[in-house]
């Protein structure tokens, strides 16, 4: 079997187990039909290098899904939390501070477990919570809250270090309230926070590998990249192939994140003269 066949069979294995017929309305024909899916059974013996590359890469879809959605949604919660922590209202400050402490002070791994069993108990109370026990939603919520807490701390730090002169200048121009925030506070904060935020994004993508090791079940062996790497390491009893493949994929993913976020960074700092633009310094990741 050639490698292309393997890719066709297992490329989408992390999302499908078995094939599905899809019918879509189409312009010239009544229905556009095609088949989408993947082999139901994972390979059992004679594991080829191609199979390992394909399946681990297929699992990476989940890592990207979790990371991207959590990052996008977490951004907004983080912003509100950072503003809340810097607010003049006592209660708002305490609530935001407590939330940040809770999620930054405890291991993400434990948070996953706690959330999973919490959702399971809630499922017994109301069937609405049914989808929450599966990874695609439940783990996403945990990651969303977690990254919001970490980013909120970054944004709060940036908020504190906005140059005093900028705010005074805004006052002198007669800006206040929302327009002051939108035109001065927010852009400056984002600029200051961005390098640290890139780090947080890299962290987050690496943290997504924890999902399938923390209670959330991988139904029908649909898992993320680490799940498949672990599968191959268990089956072949040879960790020296699947884990380096995984590492390679993640290094590529990290480089892609740095590239994308670096573009945003360029845009954020586009008003500065070229020489004054600080070179992005990246401190690689720790575990959370």
């Amino acid at each position: 079997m050639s490698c292309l066949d393997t890719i066709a069979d297992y490329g989408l294995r992390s999302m499908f187990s078995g094939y599905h017929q899809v019918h879509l309305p189409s312009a010239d024909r009544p229905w556009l039909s095609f088949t989408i899916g993947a082999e139901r059974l994972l390979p059992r013996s004679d594991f080829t290098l191609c199979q390992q590359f394909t399946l681990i890469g297929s699992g990476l879809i989940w890592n990207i899904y979790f990371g991207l959605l959590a990052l996008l949604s977490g951004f907004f919660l983080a912003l509100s939390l950072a503003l809340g922590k810097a607010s003049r209202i006592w209660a708002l400050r305490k609530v935001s501070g407590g939330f940040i402490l809770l999620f930054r002070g405890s291991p993400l791994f434990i948070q996953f477990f706690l959330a999973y069993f919490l959702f399971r108990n809630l499922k017994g109370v109301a069937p609405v919570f049914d989808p929450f026990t599966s990874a695609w939603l439940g783990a996403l919520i945990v990651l969303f809250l977690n990254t919001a807490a970490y980013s909120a701390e970054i944004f709060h730090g940036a908020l504190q270090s906005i140059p005093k002169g900028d705010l005074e200048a805004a006052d002198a121009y007669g800006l206040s309230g929302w327009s002051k925030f939108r035109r001065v506070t927010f852009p400056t904060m984002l600029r200051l926070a961005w390098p640290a935020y890139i780090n947080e994004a890299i962290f987050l993508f690496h943290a997504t590998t924890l999902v399938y090791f923390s209670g959330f079940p991988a139904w029908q062996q649909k898992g993320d990249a680490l799940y498949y790497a672990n599968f191959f390491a268990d089956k072949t009893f040879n960790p020296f192939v699947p884990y380096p493949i995984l590492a390679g994929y993640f290094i590529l993913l990290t480089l892609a994140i740095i590239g994308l976020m670096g573009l945003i960074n360029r845009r954020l700092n586009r008003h500065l003269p070229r020489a004054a633009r600080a070179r992005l310094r990246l401190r690689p990741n720790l575990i959370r």
Partner: protein
Amino acid sequence: MAFYWSFGTVLVLLAITAPVALAFGFAGASAARSRLLPLRWLGKGYIMVVRGVPDIAFFLFFVIALDQGFEYLRHLAICPDWDQPVRRGNDFVVCPQAKLPLGNAPQVWHEIYGFFLAVLTFAIVFGAFAANVLFGAMRAVPRAQMETAEAFGMSQRQAFWRVLVPQMWVYALPGLSNLWMVLIKATPLLFLLGVKDIVYWARELGGTKTPQFTDYPHGDWRMWYFLALLVFYLAFTRLSEIVLARIMARLTHGQATAAGEAQRKAAA
């Protein structure tokens, strides 16, 4: 009862790993600033590789890799006349005398060996992080201090041990305390390494118990067990913060930094 002991397991792991990782870090940082090119490459390569790769993957990888590495070395040493290949298809076979721990060893040795592997894995991974912090700290010590040492006629080695090492700690501590917090939060990953730690017992004990198998039947309590773990970690983190702030105040004493100067003024 085993559940309560497992808290001890976590604390023991932290207590052993922290100094070992620091030693790894110190060796790595010293190598990275060595004047010998290969040694410098070795130190920098160690820091780069471990930090660049996803962490959990590293944990999963190292436990098997180290185990197989040890067994293979023993295999080479103990039974040199073994003629079959070690890697047979999907199996890894060494001669029975080279098994670690020996097949007939009591269960407790298996657990101790597993724990030892976990400590080594943690030390390797966190050693790289520590090496990075210490490398930065060594460079942060003011150049004038080293020049003074040279002016006093100290050799390279003397200047390193008597001037650089005592002074670098104050620069390294913020990074190291951050690392300590991260290390605390990495301990639940022990569960993935096959050690029976608090996560393992929380899952075991919290699960539904039916009256056939136990005198104390209860429903699914795992949620509450994990809530307890969450509180444990929060409290431990908070405690560490307080202790580290104390140590920082002690180390800052008499140092030529802004905080040290502030301390001197406050006392005067």
